[in-house]
């Protein structure tokens, strides 16, 4: 973003000189306390939240960027990132679709994100069924659909920046309760400068009547996106939530550092699916999103269940370990992952399953596909605490290599303090063989079709965990992304 561009944003956001000055300070210095204050002021946040952010920021300043992941990248200059970018007229935040900039609507339509409730209800929207969407564009939420209908069920689905005002007691209680501000370098950074994201609360005994989803879009140049998602499922409730993400193609790397916290109370279930398609950089490894994300779920209550499903096809660097703390007795954690690295993409991803409660169960299925110069590491940790009697884990890690310049690595950690626990670990590595391709082509399929078929077959166990429409989208992504990866 140019000086002029940022000026324009600051200009429209704050007519008065003070804020403009603060904003310009932010620009000059990159990231300091005034950046944090600026974001907090933009959101009109209460004092407690500003203090919470500042505390996180001060801790972050003392922290060191982690280097244990098997990823290599040019060091991130945190002073060279813009921490706020929003479309014009943010002040009169649109309440209805009619108020949203037609340019933005056209963009979402192009991305296939259904924003028109009327069209969805009439069955003409591409998704063909009801999905409530929160559309986050750079640092702000543009619109959240189906809020009234969800409210009839007592379901809260809104931008987190609004929830801070509308439901302060819930936000105050749960924000940072699963991922503490000081959890890790990127979580601390996010806590200091997060700008928006989604908040979901499902009341006791309610089965959320539709899928909820958030669509993240990075648009502005040299801007980082730091979103925060918080989902709370109260006793006996159920929700299925999906996030999707994209960014334009640029030569510069951009930082995305999100935090997602899930809380499942007694007998509650959260199904969280991700289709991550951030810009991966070009074929030579130039540009692309740095995706450093902390996702964690707390299975707080007995018999609660959290299921993470992720399809990771984008980003230059992925550093992400959606995890479950299985605190309630008989609680269940699941992690299903398909990651694709091609070009010069690098992914270090996996999960942590922390068994605290009795008879807690976890399942890990990780499928890694590497092509071209892609490098991929599965990093997973299973911890069974002393009191977690009868805990069980099953881990399966499969890697598929396409071509000879790519790599796959598996780094499992286990720590068992309870003798009655049962753990199983399976791992395989295979290569798409000339014999498989020959077989498919001999039956009339093109080489592209053959590779797509083999890859989809490999990923099937995970794809079937996704809601139907998204599975189709994911399948397309896996197919499309492999164009030219063979031969």
């Amino acid at each position, binding site marked *: 973003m140019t000086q002029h561009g940022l000026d324009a944003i600051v200009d429209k956001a704050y007519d008065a000189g003070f804020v403009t000055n603060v904003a310009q300070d932010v620009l000059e210095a990159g990231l300091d306390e005034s950046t944090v204050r600026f974001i907090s002021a933009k959101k009109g946040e209460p004092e407690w939240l500003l203090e919470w952010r500042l505390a996180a920021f001060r801790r972050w300043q003392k922290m060191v960027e982690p280097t244990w992941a098997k990823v290599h990248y040019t060091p991130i200059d945190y002073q060279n990132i813009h921490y706020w970018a929003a479309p014009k007229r943010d002040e009169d935040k649109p309440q209805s679709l009619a108020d949203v900039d037609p340019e933005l609507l056209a963009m979402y339509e192009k991305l296939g994100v259904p924003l028109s409730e009327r069209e969805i209800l009439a069955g003409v929207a591409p998704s063909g069924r009801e999905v409530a969407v929160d559309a986050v564009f750079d640092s702000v939420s543009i619109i959240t659909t189906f809020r009234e209908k969800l409210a009839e069920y007592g379901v809260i689905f809104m931008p987190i920046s609004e929830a801070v005002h509308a439901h302060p007691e819930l936000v105050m209680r749960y924000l940072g309760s699963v991922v503490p501000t000081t959890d890790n370098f990127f979580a601390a950074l996010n806590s200091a400068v997060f700008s928006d994201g989604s908040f979901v609360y499902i009341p006791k005994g309610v089965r959320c009547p539709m899928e909820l989803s958030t669509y993240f879009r990075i648009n502005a140049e040299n801007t980082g996106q730091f979103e925060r998602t918080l989902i709370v499922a109260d006793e006996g409730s159920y929700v299925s939530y999906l996030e999707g993400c994209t960014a334009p193609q640029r030569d510069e790397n951009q930082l995305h550092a999100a935090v997602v916290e899930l809380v499942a109370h007694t007998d509650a279930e959260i199904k969280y699916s991700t289709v991550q398609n951030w810009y991966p950089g070009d074929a030579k490894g130039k540009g692309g999103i740095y995706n450093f994300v902390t996702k964690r779920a707390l299975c707080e209550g007995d018999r609660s269940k959290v299921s993470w499903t992720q399809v990771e096809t984008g980003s230059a660097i992925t550093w992400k370990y959606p995890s479950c703390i299985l605190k309630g007795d008989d609680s269940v954690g699941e992690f299903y992952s398909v990651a694709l690295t091609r070009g010069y993409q690098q992914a270090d991803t996996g999960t942590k399953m922390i068994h605290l409660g009795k008879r807690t169960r976890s399942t890990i299925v990780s499928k890694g596909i590497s092509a071209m110069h892609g490098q991929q590491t599965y990093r997973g940790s299973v911890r069974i605490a002393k009191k977690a009697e009868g805990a069980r884990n099953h881990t399966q890690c499969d890697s598929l290599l396409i071509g000879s310049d790519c790599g796959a690595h598996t780094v499992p950690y286990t720590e068992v303090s309870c003798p009655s626990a049962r753990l199983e670990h399976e791992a395989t590595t295979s290569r798409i063989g000339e014999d498989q391709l020959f077989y498919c082509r001999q039956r009339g399929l093109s080489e592209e079709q053959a590779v797509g078929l083999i890859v989809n*077959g490999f990923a099937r166990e995970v794809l079937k965990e996704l809601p139907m429409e998204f599975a189709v989208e994911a399948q397309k992504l896996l197919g499309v992304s492999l164009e030219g990866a063979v031969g």
Partner: protein
Amino acid sequence: MLKIENLHVEVAGTPILKGLNLYLPKGEVHAIMGPNGAGKSTLAYVLAGREGYVVTKGKVTFMGEDLLSRPIEERAQAGVFLAMQYPVAIPGVTNLYFLREALNAVRTARGEERLSGVEFMKLAKKKAALVELDPELLKRAVNDGFSGGEKKRNEIFQMAVLEPRLALLDETDSGLDIDALRVVSQGVNTLRSPERGMLVITHYQRLLDEIIPDVVHVLFDGTIVKTGGKDLALELESKGYADIRTAAGAPA
């Protein structure tokens, strides 16, 4: 239908086929017999277009057109089918889905409409019954965890669905017990048609008790050294390949 003229093929620099000639008119079933290493499988692979099988001389015409210049899938789309000796597994891809995609790729290439899921299902069930293939296998991943017999039966099932003009059967009898051999052979026999040519490659005569060929060729050291009627197979069975070796000037 298929005309092979003076075909020379190398694999990794070693000449395997050395001037092979063969003519297969449509509607006929020809058997290719020969000892191990004679070049039987090489012939099947080179006709299908597999990588690594380098044609150094010669010509193959199929339905009046040059075959060797076309990529693997185009040959398949034109109606060349190879029932493989060692069919590979494709984990996670169901047999049904795989075959539907294949059939639709072939149909699209021929300018025909794709079959819907329902239409395909009907066709698949009919064809599965033809080769006595357990319908449960249709839902399983392609050749994944199949027994040797199931794999071979699956190849013939695919052939029945794809209805090729030229069927190449590479050692379809290997690894089959006598019952499986009978079922597979019956499947092949029902697919015999005046419009279809078949090349049955086998080491043993026993397959030819079930699939009676119109013509038998003996392949030895990269060329066809003898051609005859179905009785030639019986002759080979009783005398072995020793006479052939001697006739070809090789030590027996």
